[in-house]
């Protein structure tokens, strides 16, 4: 068993070294009440096939991946995504009305102007921690911070 495991580990090493995974434009909307879930958004891009498997932040009890699906009648519902697959060269953008990171059981109100760390765990890229700025309640994207 042991030699095989070692071989797999060695084969994986070059991939790990070459892989580049970027987490860009993170932002969250300020919350009005701490008792209500928050939402955060960002863009992910990976050089290699990867999978986002876990999310963690001290700002919330737990973080879930949600996709808002609006049907032809304009009815919206949130779907829970267990794990998100990343395809090389295809960025995945979380944005209002589409995918969001749902911040459940907030430890406090997300105050405009503050930031909080968010750790994303990927199957290949491992853990990446980003600082998420909290924008105003009326923000609709990372660009309108002013």
């Amino acid at each position, binding site marked *: 068993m042991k030699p095989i495991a070692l071989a797999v580990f060695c084969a994986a090493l070059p991939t790990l070294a070459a892989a580049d995974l970027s987490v860009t434009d993170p932002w969250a909307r300020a919350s009005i009440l701490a008792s209500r879930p928050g939402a955060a958004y960002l863009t992910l891009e990976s050089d290699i096939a990867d999978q986002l498997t876990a999310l963690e932040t001290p700002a919330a009890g737990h973080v879930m991946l949600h996709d808002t699906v609006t049907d032809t009648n*304009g009815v919206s*519902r949130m779907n829970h995504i267990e794990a998100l697959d990343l395809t090389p060269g295809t960025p995945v953008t979380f944005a209002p009305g589409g995918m969001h990171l749902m911040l459940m*059981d907030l430890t406090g109100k997300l105050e405009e102007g503050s930031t909080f760390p968010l750790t994303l765990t990927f199957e290949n890229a491992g853990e990446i921690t980003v600082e998420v700025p909290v924008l105003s309640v009326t*923000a609709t994207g990372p660009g309108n911070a002013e």
Partner: protein
Amino acid sequence: MNQTSNGGGLSRIRRGLWAMTGVAVVALGAAFLWRAQTPGDLPGPRVTGEAAITNAYTLTDHTGRSVTADDFDGQWQLVFFGFTHCPDICPTTLAYMAQVMDALGPKSAQVTPIFVTVDPARDTRDVMAAYVEAFHPRMVGLTGTEAQIAEAAGNFRVWYERAEDTTAPNGYTMAHSGHIYVMAPDGGFVDVWLEGDAPAETFAENLSALIQATGSSS
């Protein structure tokens, strides 16, 4: 008064408010006739044949006042049904409504944005007050009993449903239609929009033109 020919630059809009201007004018005229034949203070539902959307409800506003649709007589109304445990579509739509108000400039004084909860069990008057105040000083939040909300949503043809979800706070979430209803100062239905249909500026331009068109007749 007839502006329907001037639609070229507004082709982005799904159904076109210009075409609806005619409906609004007809509705205004009809409402005027209806009122002329009806005793003064009699409240009544307002129906347009177009979509059978009725601007009728008895709810409690975020200041604790009992209100009906008649309380917004004389104001253009942007009506949205949502809930405060909704972290994505609802704040995005409320923010959009606030941006429309800002883009309207002085004309926003003739418009009332209204947020009606479909989750009255959790969205109490205090919660609604905190929400609407965070989005726009002129926004009104409406809540009520389950029956009152069901009646209001039914009149607007708004669909909503409690969806059991063990991962959600309190074990449930709501699925709901995310339309913004544009209602005329006589309470008549004018159009429905989704937040993603057009930029807030475009919505505001169209609403502004409607306000201009109807305002000039008075």
